[in-house]
Every structure is written in C-alpha cells, then in structure tokens.
C-alpha cells in the first residue's frame, strides 16, 4: 500500500495524503480470493449500454429503427423514460428523476443546456451519427461522470481508434410518413494504425406530426443539422492524441406543449485528448482531455397566434473542462482514478414588448450569469473474489456558484436581501455494489450515498415559467445540498436460452428540491396561476421495481418482456410529479439469413398516483403495437441495408405521464431506412 502512495507523484504530499485517506477504505484485501472469473467486470455491472452506432452494419440489423433519433434510442433503454414537449429534444429521466438529478455527458464532457425551460437537454446536441453507445449508470453508478442523484448517461462518440480499416464510408437516408420526416446522412472515415479521421453529417427535417386519428399536432415541426469530425494520431506506440469537434444546429423547432418555439439551438462541442498506455509503471490507460463547448438557444413566439405579450428569450451556456484518468490493474483489484473539473457560464435573458409601444420594453435576467466551478476526484475499485465481486466508488467534489452579473444579483436580492454572490459546497458520493453468482443465479446488491448541488434554475432562476403546472418559478440561492441514500437489489436467473430477473431500487432523498407555491408573490407571466419558490422538502422517497425476461425460442426467434412499477412520494405522503405508472413492453425479434423482423408492444397502466398541484392529470392506460422488417444485401464488397417498419400500428391516440401538458403522441407511422456502406 505504501508502495502505491509513493508512486503517487502529482501534487505532492498533501494531495497524496488526501487521496490516501479517501481511498484507503477501498484497499480491502480479499484474502480468500483465488482467481477472478474472466468476465466478472461485465457481470457486476448493473449499468446498461445502449448500442447506437448507426455506422456499423452489424448493429443495423439488431436495431429496430436504425436512423431514429437519439431520443428514440434512449427511450428504448430499460431505465430511461423521455419527457416530451414535442417531437424534438426530449428530456431523459432515469429512476423517475430528470435533468437536475442526472449527469449527462458527451464522451465524458460536461455540457449544460442553455434554455431556462429545459427545451434543450444536451442529448439534443448530438445525433446518432456521432455516437457509438450510451453508457447508463443508475444512481451513484453514474457518479463516474459527475455529481448525481438519479444516475449518469455518458454518450460515447464513435471513433475508429486506429483500427486498420482504411477508407470506409456510407450514405443513409430515412423517411417517415407521419410527419414527413426526411433524414439524410453520410460519413467518410479513414483509419490505420497511426492515424484515423471520422467525419459525418446528418440532416433531419420533419413537419407537424399527427396523433392517432389523424389529429395534427400544431407546432411539432423541426429541422436539424449535425456535423462532426474526430481524429487521432499516434505519437508513439503507446501514446496518441485525439481531437473532436461537433457542430449541431436546430432551427424552427416547434414545442406544441409549450407556449414558445425555438428559432435556433446551436452547439459547438470541441475537445482534445491525450492517451498513454502506461503511467509511472503501475498505472495504465492514462487518458486526459481538455474540452470546451458553447450553446446558444433562442426561443421564439412570433409564429404563435394570440400571444398575450411578445417576448424574446435567448440563453447561452458555455463550459470548459478537463478530466484525467488512469487505472491500476492488479490481480484482485482494478482501480480507476479520475480527476475532473469544469467551469460553466449560464446566462439567459427575457425581453418583453408591451402592447402599448410607447412604453419601454421590459427586461429581466432569467439566469443571472451564473458561474459554476466544479472540481472532483473520483476513484473506484473492483475487488474480485472467487464467485463474487465488489465495486467500491467514491467522488469528492468542490462546487461553487457565483452570480457574476450585478443586475442579476440585485434582481435576486429582491427576494433574498441577505444572499451572497457566491455559494460553495462540498459534494460527496460513496457507493458499494456487490455481485454474487451461484450457478445460474446472479445477485446484485448495492448501497450508496450521493449529493448534488441545485441546478442553475433551482438556485438562480428568475420568473421561469413552467407551462406544466402553470406557475412562475423563482430560484433559491440558499438551498441545502440534496442528498440521497440509495439501495438496490436484483436477482437474475440466467441460462443461455432463458433469463428472468427482478430488480428494485429505493432512493431516500433528503432535502429534496421542488417548487412550492408562495401565495404572497405575484405572477409575472400573464395567465400563470401563481409563483413557486424552490424549497428543500425534508425528504422524498422513490421506488423503482422491474421484472424482465428473455426467452430464445429458437436461434432465430427471441422473446423479451419487461414490466415495471414505480412510486414516488414526498415527506407528507403526497405523490411526486412525473412518476411512471405501471409500464410494460414486450417484443419478439427474428433474425436469420440477413432478414430481420420484430413485433413489439409498449404500454402503461392508468396513472393512479399523480399530483394535480404539479399540473398532472390522470393519464389513461394505453398500449401501442409496432413492427419492423429489414434485409441486408451484399453488393460486391459493399453493404446495402434496408429496414422498414410501422409504429403505432393501430393508430392509437394516447398520451403518457411523460407528455408535457398531455400532448398526444404520434399516431401510425411508417418508416423506411436505407443505408449503403462502402468498405
């Protein structure tokens, strides 16, 4: 152990001592361990990986809808539900927790949306053409990417990584009938042992979609471009540098569930990284990255009829950050150490133009140029026993928010005369996850603790209108840090042709942050019902349980199914908003001789537990049926892959608990995807 510390060279003794005291708890020597099972790393992981990579022909066949949006890919995950405000830019939720309680990163990079009304979750700034997979960690299993309560999603960029594939390319196109969505994409890649470059572009344009029964949903159109380039160069056998750049621009995006649309959402996401196979003898896979991203988001209500007052609401978010991580692989321990940090600037303003044009325009800062600094240390260790393994992880972070704009600070001081410009927190996370295997049974159990700071809106938002509960929201700079104690347990019976699993997790969240009505305050938004101020509830409780199964009927046919139950209540036993009712899905997939097909059903029971004071109404039970068919053709060396499908075959008109203001979902939709790849 001493030997390990002494090779810890950076930042001298202080850092060494700190790290030592933090991580020494992980150096539990498993005296009875013999040999580790080769694939134990995979077994322990409760984490889910969604394979996206549109470029890989192999995956095309397994995916029911290869060129679907990233949002649809995420929604197909077991653990993610998407909150929808229209056809574009859905907001991921995990364990019934949304953006503020999740950490969503792109290739390890922190990015924060620039919209005060959550119209631009960062998943909207990448596209499937950029990504190879989405790594999902539930609860503190996501803490590797940042401070979180509900979990983490890391969207991994697609890179050739010095595979000797030479020149490859593909063109893809898709069409969907329901909203006349046109997708055109293509990529050109070159890769050898010393150098690779990946470039891709994708364009999507959709008209208004129609809900079941041919009911057109006005303002649900969108248009989006995305370009990305990433490249790597080997400096030496064990050293390489890489750089990536993503440009994403969406225009004319309708949000039928909201009173405003978006005329522009633009992101530039850039990074450079350095990789070295070893570091100071004991470390391996040393990777460091510097990144920067900037987002501009402009809301627009000029196309809406009967707007009580016209307003401009632009927002900007800029983030610079870094991380550096390395591993130590020993026979029974596998360590990962990571140091990361970011600096974010969030600024948003609102200008309203009064009906009486003699009066001056009305201006306010809705995000008062909040500067967030976060510096974190993360460490994890897999301990391998004979039939079991234990993953211990810990994150410590320094987090501070500063209101940089005087105008904004004075605005907030109207509500909080005593508030300080800067609020500093120390955020902690610790987790233990145990896995054991008896014959075909797998037991997973975990206990963890995590903390998060309030989001910019929760801490510093100024009259942010929430159309869901029809209230204006005011941030509270002195909110307490939210913390969560989480346990999870799952039991799986896994035979190669048959698998059944039951899993549950429970979050006891202390200082749960939510908006509470302050009847003394006057609304700003015309037509709003009241003003809410973010408060800490003593606690809230969340329970998620899932039963899932898989059965390989024959080599060609596979049957899968899942049913889940969720519950969320506050300290008074009141229902929390946006908690899923009982939901289920089941599918039968066929794959043989380059033919693929699937038939799937998705549904939910009636939303029994809802909360009207958060704008919720009881959503009815629904079920939808979808099917897809695909065929891969070989044309000399190249591949042509065609996939067609029907979603919502019965043209059901339905809405789920995640649909903002109960906007109906898309009705029957036929789609056709063609990809041609040149090898």
């Amino acid at each position, binding site marked *: 152990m001493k030997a390990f510390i002494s090779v810890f060279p950076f930042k001298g003794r202080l850092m060494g001592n700190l790290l030592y005291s933090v991580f020494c708890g992980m150096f539990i020597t498993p005296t009875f361990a013999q040999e580790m099972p080769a694939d134990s790393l995979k077994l322990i992981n409760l984490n889910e990986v969604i394979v996206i990579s549109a470029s890989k022909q192999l995956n095309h066949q397994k995916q029911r809808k290869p060129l679907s949006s990233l949002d649809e890919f995420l929604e197909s995950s077991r653990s993610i539900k998407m909150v929808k405000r229209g056809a574009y830019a859905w907001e991921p939720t995990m364990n019934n927790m949304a953006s503020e309680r999740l950490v969503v990163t792109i290739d390890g990079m922190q990015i924060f949306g620039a919209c005060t009304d959550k119209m631009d979750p960062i998943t909207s700034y990448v596209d499937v053409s950029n990504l190879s997979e989405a790594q999902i960690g539930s609860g503190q299993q996501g803490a590797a990417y940042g401070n979180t309560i509900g979990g983490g999603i890391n969207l991994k960029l697609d890179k050739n990584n010095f595979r000797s594939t030479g020149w490859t390319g593909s063109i893809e196109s898709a069409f969907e009938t329901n909203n006349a969505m046109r997708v055109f994409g293509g990529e050109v890649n070159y890769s050898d042992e010393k150098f690779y470059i990946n470039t891709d572009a994708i364009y999507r344009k959709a008209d208004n979609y129609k809900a079941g029964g041919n009911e057109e949903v006005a303002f649900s159109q969108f248009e989006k471009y995305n370009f990305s380039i990433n490249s790597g160069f080997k400096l030496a056998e064990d050293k390489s540098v890489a750089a990536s750049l993503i440009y994403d621009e969406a225009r004319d995006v309708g949000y039928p569930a909201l009173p405003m649309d978006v005329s522009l959402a633009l992101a530039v996401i850039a990074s450079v990284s350095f990789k070295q196979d070893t570091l100071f003898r004991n470390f391996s896979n040393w990777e460091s990255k510097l990144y920067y991203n900037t987002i501009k988001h402009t809301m627009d209500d000029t196309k809406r009829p009967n707007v009580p007052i016209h307003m401009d609401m632009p927002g900007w978010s800029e983030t610079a950050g870094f991380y550096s991580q390395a591993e130590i692989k020993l026979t029974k321990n596998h360590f990962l150490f990571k140091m990361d940090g970011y600096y974010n600037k969030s600024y948003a303003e*609102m200008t309203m133009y*009064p009906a*009486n044009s003699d009066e*001056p325009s*009305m201006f306010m800062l809705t995000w008062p140029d909040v500067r967030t600094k976060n510096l974190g240390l993360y460490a994890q260790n897999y301990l391998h026993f004979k039939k079991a393994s234990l993953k211990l992880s810990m994150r410590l972070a320094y987090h501070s928010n500063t209101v940089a704009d005087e105008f904004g600070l*004075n605005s907030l001081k109207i509500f909080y005369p005593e508030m300080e410009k800067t609020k500093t927190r120390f955020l902690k996370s610790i987790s233990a996850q145990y896995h054991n295997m008896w014959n075909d049974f797998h037991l997973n159990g975990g206990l963890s603790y995590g903390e998060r700071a309030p989001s910019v809106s929760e801490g510093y938002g100024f009259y942010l209108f929430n159309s869901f509960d029809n209230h204006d929201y005011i941030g509270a700079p002195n909110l307490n840090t939210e913390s969560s104690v989480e346990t999870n347990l799952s039991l799986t019976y896994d035979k190669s042709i048959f698998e059944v699993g039951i899993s549950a997790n429970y979050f006891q969240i202390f200082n749960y942050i939510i908006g509470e009505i302050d009847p003394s305050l006057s*609304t*700003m938004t*015309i037509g709003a019902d009241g003003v809410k101020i973010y408060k800490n509830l003593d606690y809230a409780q969340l329970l998620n349980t899932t039963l899932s199964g898989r059965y390989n009927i024959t080599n060609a046919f596979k049957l899968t199914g899942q049913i889940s139950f969720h519950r969320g209540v506050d300290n008074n036993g009141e229902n929390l908003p946006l908690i899923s009712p009982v939901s289920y899905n089941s599918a039968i997939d066929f794959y043989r001789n380059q033919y693929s097909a699937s038939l799937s059903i998705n549904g939910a029971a009636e939303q029994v537990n809802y909360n009207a004071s958060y704008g919720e109404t009881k959503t009815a039970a629904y079920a939808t049926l979808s099917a897809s068919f695909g065929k891969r053709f070989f044309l000399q060396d190249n591949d042509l892959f065609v996939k067609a499908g029907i979603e919502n075959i019965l043209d059901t008109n339905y809405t789920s608990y995640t649909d903002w203001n109960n906007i109906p979902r898309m009705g029957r939709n036929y789609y056709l995807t063609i990809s041609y790849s040149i090898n």
Partner: protein
Amino acid sequence: MKKLTYIFAILILSILTISCSSDDDNTPVEINPVEGLIMIYEIEATDHTIQIYSKKPNLEVGYNEISIRVKDLASNQFVSNLSPSWMPMMHMETMEHAAPHSMLTNAEESTVYKGHIVFQMASNATEFWELTLNYNLNGVAKEEVVNIQVIEPIDGLKKTQVFTGSDNTRYVLAYVNPKEPAVAVNNMQAVLYKMETMMSFPVVENYKITVDPRMSGMGNHSSPNNEDLIYNALTKTYDGKLSLTMTGYWKINLKLLNENDEVLKGEDVTEANPESSLFFEIEF
C-alpha cells in the same frame, strides 16, 4: 531551496513597496462643487452674480433639487455666509400661490446652497413662476426676483400628486427617489406637504404611505418586499423600499394614511380595482 525563498520574499516585498508608493502621490484634486449640475439661470447684479443650478436642464412640475451660489465680484469668490431664504410664487390670472419648498442650506459645500421646490403646475403664456431670493452679502440684505420657467415633465410621467384627502386637507405628494430606478430593491423617497394657506406648505410629519408597484402591461404584476414610506425626521422625507423585478413602465400605487392609520387617499389594488387613485409612474 532557501535561495528560492529569499528571491520569492524579495519579489513579494518589492511588489508591496511599489504598490504602496503609488498610493502616496495623492495630491489633492480641485473638486468642482457644482460638478454634474447644469446652470439654468445666471443673474447679474451690480456687485455680484447669482447662479441657479439644477440636475436637469429645466425646472419641471414636481420635485426639483436646486442649488444656488453667489459670486462676489469684488473678491471674485463664491460667498459662504449668505444665510439665504427663498419663496417660489405662481402668478395666475386671478390669484397667486406659493409652492412647497425646503430651506436652503450649505451643509455639503460651503458656497453652494441647496434646497428643493415642488412645483404644482407649469408656467404658461399668461401664468408664470417667480422665485424671490433674500440673502446677506457683506452684511447687506439683498433681494432678487427671478422669473423662472417651469415645464411639464419631459417623460410625461406622473410623479407629483396634488389632492384633497378624506380629512378635507389639500396635500402635495412628490416623488424624489430613486432617480435612476434599477431592477433591485430601490431606496424610495417622497416628500409630503400640506397646504395650510395659499402661501404656506408645511411638511406633514409621521404619516405613512403604502407602496404597491404594478406593471399594467404584465397583467398587473407586482413585486415582493416593498416597504411603506415612513417619515424620516432628519431629512423631512418619507423613506421606504421599492422592488422592481424588471425594467419597463411601472405604476406605483400608493395609499396615504395618517397617524391613526386612517386612509386619507388611495385604494388597495385588487382584481376589481386595478389601480389606486394615488400613484406615481416610472419608466426605465
């Protein structure tokens, strides 16, 4: 290592000395006592001139801060023992009346006499304002009468209210501060006078004025944490807090209450009654 420490110490010391020494060249700067003010009148008398200053280029209906100084032409110095008094007078076609005003004092600058006048009305073709100044110059009592022009506020906003309260008394209420409103909690100030006679307007003490700012353009949006205007005996003004949550046009609805908390003028703002009859208007 030790050497390095020395170098470091010397470096820090030298920086400190440099920054300290630069503070020393603090030569006294001539301060212009009427900095930022506009001379609106200059009256030439035989052995002296009288200068009248204001922040604005014109005297307007409402609260006006006015500065006066007198230059002795013999010594070419501004005089600091004037003990001046003043009286504004409106000459209407059928009558004349004075205006509420403060005393003139030279507390801040010995040669600049400051005070305020609340003009209730504008001058026009047939009706005009005269300002009579009485002062001592070198032991001799002097009087000068200046014809002054008072215009309606250029911004067209109501910042002065002349009204009869439920106690059958005429009052003059005028907005003083904030001169530059901000999206913040502003320090608000107003002056309140009672019209005893046409010539006498004493300051009203120990009443209370409630404050309810509203944006009529935003569904009568209001702001929190306003504080009633309370009489400040030191400044003879009514001081309180005015919160403004955004820029734009605000109507500040007011209610005047006497010592017994009886409402003399103004009403609560409710759904049915969107504004008070006693109010100020601001725009920024």
